[in-house]
């Protein structure tokens, strides 16, 4: 990125205003989501929208993209007042949005997805014609994905490129990317940034929604910070510091957890020996992997996602059967234990896909609170549930985990993302007497929720629990872990003590460059 920094400062502020939003107000039921928000976008800039969950970033974007109609306020595109009745009207004016959750049809090809519902699609089509047209469009916008591939075959990063291509093909000059890096690996995020810089170099405007400070500082020209549905500031990126932005975002200076921590114990709590296991598609995901986590220790797993991290978590949690190897929890063999026996052995697990696996969104908070403990003697007898005790437990959990909910009878799906994760993390922390597995525990969370979840990991550590932290966020791994293991193609590819870790070497190991990393470490 260093080479582009210079050109970026030059370009900042150079473009004309293409979109102007003034006094945008929008409320849902009685909740005011946007309160007189102003936003101006210049041609040829990456404009970051920064804010915590619920700050209004996505809402203002949806207003610009014609998905929501504001209750009050004016939108001007090229100095002309516009009222978008639909996303189609917005894209006709040149504003297109790529949503956080992709809207692609998985069993259809890239070419078919790009042409679906597009006014330019010819009336009579053939497969080859669609693929040729797609290749041409991709050449024009400078993004490349195999037009004949079906969506489900693509990586998340590639799917995102299809979404971007689809939006650009429809004539978007202003491209809004809603939390585009939340689903990407570090590598893919970097590639996306290159794409974004290329787009603005071509005169387009990119709105980049994020709450990751480093990314915003790295890629944007200007930053607008929102908090609680209001403007806080709009400023050039040049000269901004992470500390300042964090303060603007949260409205307070939150101290990073102090580093005064006790040394880990010397009791091995979780031991994995020679583990080989297959992934969901039947290919080998873990290959002869061994690791040990000691009591009172956080072991962080760094790695590009898809290198066996999730399978590792699932094997330990009893959700996936290994082909070979052993798992010992507190010295007791649990290699083929059922998920329930693993829970009863004191293993808590924050799953990667928290909505898909960790919660029943249609069920009450109360029922979700005991999802992983309803069978124990506190909560039920042989047949019947102890409803009173379960409600009591849920109330205590909601309070201790700081879940903001109107009542334990509220539906879990109505909680915000941060509160859903607080509920899961709190529930699993209570289970984790011996081992706590946290897979991407703070992905997509705002600063406050992230802090709460990390504190619960540290609290388990302090209580002598063995914590296995899997995260794509290298900063998180470095900050939290006593020991860092790098995973590559299903095995541990490198190990670092806290403080002795070197980002560059970790990066090389994550990419499988064993020899180079070792060479370099030898040279030191």
């Amino acid at each position, binding site marked *: 990125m260093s080479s582009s920094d210079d050109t970026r400062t030059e370009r900042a502020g150079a473009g004309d205003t293409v979109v102007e939003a003034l006094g945008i107000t929008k409320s849902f039921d009685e909740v005011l989501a946007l309160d007189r928000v102003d936003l101006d976008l210049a041609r040829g800039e990456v404009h970051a929208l920064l804010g915590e969950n619920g700050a209004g970033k996505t809402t203002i974007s949806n207003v610009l993209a014609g998905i929501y109609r504001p209750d*009050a306020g004016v939108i001007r595109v090229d100095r002309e007042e516009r009222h978008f*009745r639909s996303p189609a009207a917005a894209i006709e004016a040149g504003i297109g949005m790529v949503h956080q959750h992709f809207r692609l049809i998985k069993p259809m090809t890239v070419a078919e997805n790009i042409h679906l519902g597009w006014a330019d699609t010819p009336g009579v089509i053939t497969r080859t014609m669609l693929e040729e047209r797609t290749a041409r469009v991709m050449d024009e916008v400078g993004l490349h994905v195999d037009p004949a591939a079906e969506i489900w075959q693509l990586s998340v990063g590639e799917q995102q490129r299809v979404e971007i291509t689809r939006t650009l093909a429809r004539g978007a000059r202003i491209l809004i990317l809603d939390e585009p890096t939340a689903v990407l690996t570090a590598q893919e995020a970097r590639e996306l940034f290159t794409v974004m810089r290329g787009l603005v170099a071509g005169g387009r405007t990119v709105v980049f929604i994020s709450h990751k400070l480093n990314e915003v500082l790295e890629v944007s020209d200007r930053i607008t910070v929102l908090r609680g549905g209001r403007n806080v500031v709009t400023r050039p990126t040049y000269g901004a510091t992470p500390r300042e932005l964090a303060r603007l975002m949260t409205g307070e200076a939150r101290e990073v957890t102090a580093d005064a921590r006790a040394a880990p114990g010397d009791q091995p709590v979780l031991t994995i020996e020679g583990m080989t296991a297959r992934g969901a598609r039947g290919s080998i995901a873990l290959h002869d992997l061994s690791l040990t986590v000691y009591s009172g220790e956080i072991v962080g797993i760094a790695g590009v996602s898809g290198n066996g991290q999730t399978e590792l978590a699932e094997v330990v949690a009893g959700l996936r059967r290994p082909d070979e190897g052993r798992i010992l929890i507190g010295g007791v063999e649990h290699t083929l234990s059922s998920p329930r026996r693993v*829970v009863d052995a004191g293993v808590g697990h924050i799953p990667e896909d928290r909505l898909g696996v960790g919660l029943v*969104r249609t069920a009450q908070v109360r*029922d979700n609170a005991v999802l*992983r403990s309803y*069978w124990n003697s506190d909560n039920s007898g042989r047949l019947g549930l102890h*409803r009173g005790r379960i409600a009591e437990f849920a109330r205590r959990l909601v309070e201790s985990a700081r879940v903001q909910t109107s009542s334990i009878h509220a539906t879990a799906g109505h909680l915000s993302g941060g509160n859903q994760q607080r509920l899961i993390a709190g529930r699993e922390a209570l289970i984790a007497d011996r081992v706590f597995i946290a897979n991407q525990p703070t992905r997509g969370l705002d600063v406050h929720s992230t802090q709460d979840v990390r504190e619960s990991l540290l609290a388990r550590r302090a209580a002598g629990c063995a914590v296995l932290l899997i995260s794509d966020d290298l900063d998180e791994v470095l900050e939290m872990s006593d020991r860092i293991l790098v995973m590559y193609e299903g095995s541990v590819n490198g190990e670092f003590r806290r403080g002795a870790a070197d980002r560059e070497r970790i990066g090389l190991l994550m990419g499988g460059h064993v020899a180079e990393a070792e060479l370099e470490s030898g040279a030191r």
Partner: protein
Amino acid sequence: MSVAVGSRSIRLERRLHVDPRRSALIRVIGLLASLVVVALLLAITGRDVPVLAGEILDTTLGTSFGLQSTAVLATPILLDAIAVAIPLRMRLWNIGVEGQFYVGALAAAGVGIYVDAPGPILLVLMALAGALGGALWILVPALARAFWNVNEIITTLLLNFVAIQWVTWFSIGPWRDKEAEVVSATPEVGARLPVLIENGILHIGFFLPLILAAAFFVVFRSWRWGYEVDMIGGNPRAAEFAGVDVRRRIMSVMLLSGALAGISGMVHLSGASGRLQGTISNQYGLSGFIVAALAGASFVALIAGGLFIALLLASGVALQGVGLSVYIVLAVYGLALIGIGVGEMASRYRLTIGDRREHPVGSERGPP
């Protein structure tokens, strides 16, 4: 969704929270509205609506016989509705209750005709046979769903036609009542459910769905099994995460559903019809299905809905009795269901009427 009327715009907004009491009230309003439409249509075609209404009330609620026949009609509908509601808690659709009802009746008839035992014991044996028959009829769809993820909607539906053919074949073929020279039915079964009132038709089977609904209400409220089924219905992957054996639950829920539908067939056979024939079910499975779906698999709402549908069907008989064509009767039935269905949808939305001047960025002009 939004409609502009004059200077005002009317919009439908989805409600975040749906109050069940409110939802029930709106359904009743929807039903009443559709009855008003029915009354208007009948009035337009020159019928005397008050007289018709009086006739209906007399033949359904107004007389002991009317009440009894409504209750007899309600029994298989309610039992079938319970059979549908249980897998529906898990988001499994048993469209095959009709077929399981038939096979249950067939198995019960076989026992009832050919086994010689004292009345009460014979009834128990018939009930067991009915439950087994119904469970057997859903066994293959249940296995296919649990182990190969084959959609149960198709498999259960298709087996309905097979079941009806079997019953027809048995009742006009090998099991036909040759002595009485009945052409299309078997002899009467050896034991009948006791009737509640002397010389009446209401049998004790009517209490079975009421007891079962209360029992399952409790099971889904405070039993582990019910909790697990509900969690699977909400998110099967989360249930697996919680260590629930989802396949086993699919099997138990579907077999239970089939067994209940089979018992429904046995109850109707031994309580009402007495003989097995190809037309033993007057589409009770379909009615039960509609009741369970409209009740949202709630065991309380299901009882109210089932009794009401039985009342509608009984009214239909009354209307036919005074010379209305069967098609008009069916249209009345359909309209009433639509009314409830629309009410159910409507309770999830709110209507907002806003002055468009409050929404400057609303929609004065069309798209450029």
